[in-house]
């Protein structure tokens, strides 16, 4: 079995790249790649967010999506950072990843009508963080 090196490049200049928001949507999108539609279409509905405390509301193909920031939950002590990485693996097949941008938020969404599942997922994540904090403290 051949040995493979994985190199992660977190250069300071790269980390200072523009911040982005990651949206985890409750559907399967049969496409991987860039899209220029997100910035113009995926907007937060601030009027509706007044009815959903600490949640984000947006729309995708007519569906109302209600979400919460996972990163905020993970990052209570300001120790966690999230990045968008680009695969720059070289010809020797040594795995290399470069930071493209820093993630400001990672929002986990569920459909309107299914908010209970969102609350359950977030509380399980909270529980997981509490357990890991106990183990590592």
């Amino acid at each position: 079995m051949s040995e493979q090196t994985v190199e992660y490049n977190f250069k300071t200049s790269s980390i200072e790249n523009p911040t982005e928001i990651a949206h985890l949507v409750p559907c399967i999108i049969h496409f991987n790649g860039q899209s220029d539609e997100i910035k113009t279409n995926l907007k937060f509905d601030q009027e509706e967010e007044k009815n959903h405390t600490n949640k984000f509301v947006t729309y995708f193909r007519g569906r109302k999506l209600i979400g919460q920031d996972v990163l905020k939950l993970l990052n209570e002590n300001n120790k966690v950072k999230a990045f968008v990485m680009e695969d720059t693996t070289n010809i020797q097949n040594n795995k290399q990843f470069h930071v493209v941008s820093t993630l400001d938020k990672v929002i986990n969404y569920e459909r309107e009508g299914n908010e209970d599942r969102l609350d359950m997922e977030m509380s399980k994540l909270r529980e997981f963080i509490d357990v890991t904090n106990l183990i590592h403290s």
Partner: protein
Amino acid sequence: MDTSALPPTVLKSLNSLHTKTYYSSVPDSIVSKKDTSPIILGVDEAGRGPVLGPMVYGIAYCTTNYMNEFIIPNYEFDDSKKLTDTIRKKLFSKMYSNDPSIDPEINQIGYATTAITPNDISSGMLRFPPSKNYNLNEQAHDVTIALIQGVLDQNVQLSHVYVDTVGPPQSYQKKLETRFPNVKFTVTKKADSLYCIVSVASVVAKVTRDFLIDSMKRNPNENIGSGYPSDPNTKRWLRESQTKLFGWPCDMVRFSWQTCDTLLTDSNTKSIQIDWEEDFLTKKRKFNSKDYETNLLKKSKEPKTLENWFFN
């Protein structure tokens, strides 16, 4: 768009992603009780079927004397579909004035509208799980009830309410009578042709919707048609403006319409295939779930890496 001459019902809903309601002031003769004849109210909608734009519910109310002695002899209110666009706009323009110092010609009819936006229609009808769906009939009934309640809350003692309906009239009438036990109801199909007060409501709703449809154009030359799925201009606009990922702007289009679903799943439109949870529950799109299962199977045989771990 010059907004200075627009009806107040339109100004309330202009550029709104969400449903808005406008109430006119209560006519003087009703507030002062100068005219004590029974107060009648008509309810009608415009834009139930279109795939584009809002569904507008309109109500109009006045005293029976004002209706019989002033409106019917002097004005040609009728089913809004039988009147031309120009006549409808002219009739409604006599009911409001954007200049507070000028009294409108028809000043003893009160009116209100609720414009249910495409975004609210779609998101209500496309909730998950499907048992939580807020269907169009429920949305329409709730809006009608809220409009009537809104008039009652302004201390207007309604005597008789006439409602135009597309669904079964008996069960709807029963529902309204139970909700408002002190008001008499007549719920019927074609009420806009049978009762003048419903014709007035029909004109208020139709003119409001037409202005709102016009305001949705992203440039003056954009031709979106009437918004009905059968309109060739609407069909062409839907095809030409469809984008791969989002489809169309959510403030313009009712995604819950079959027309949209057909275009979003048509391979000729180059739309990106998206599977929602209910697609797997209902097995409506068998090819999708099969494709997903095949992908899962393929991915599970690959070694886990940073790029593919989330598929396993």
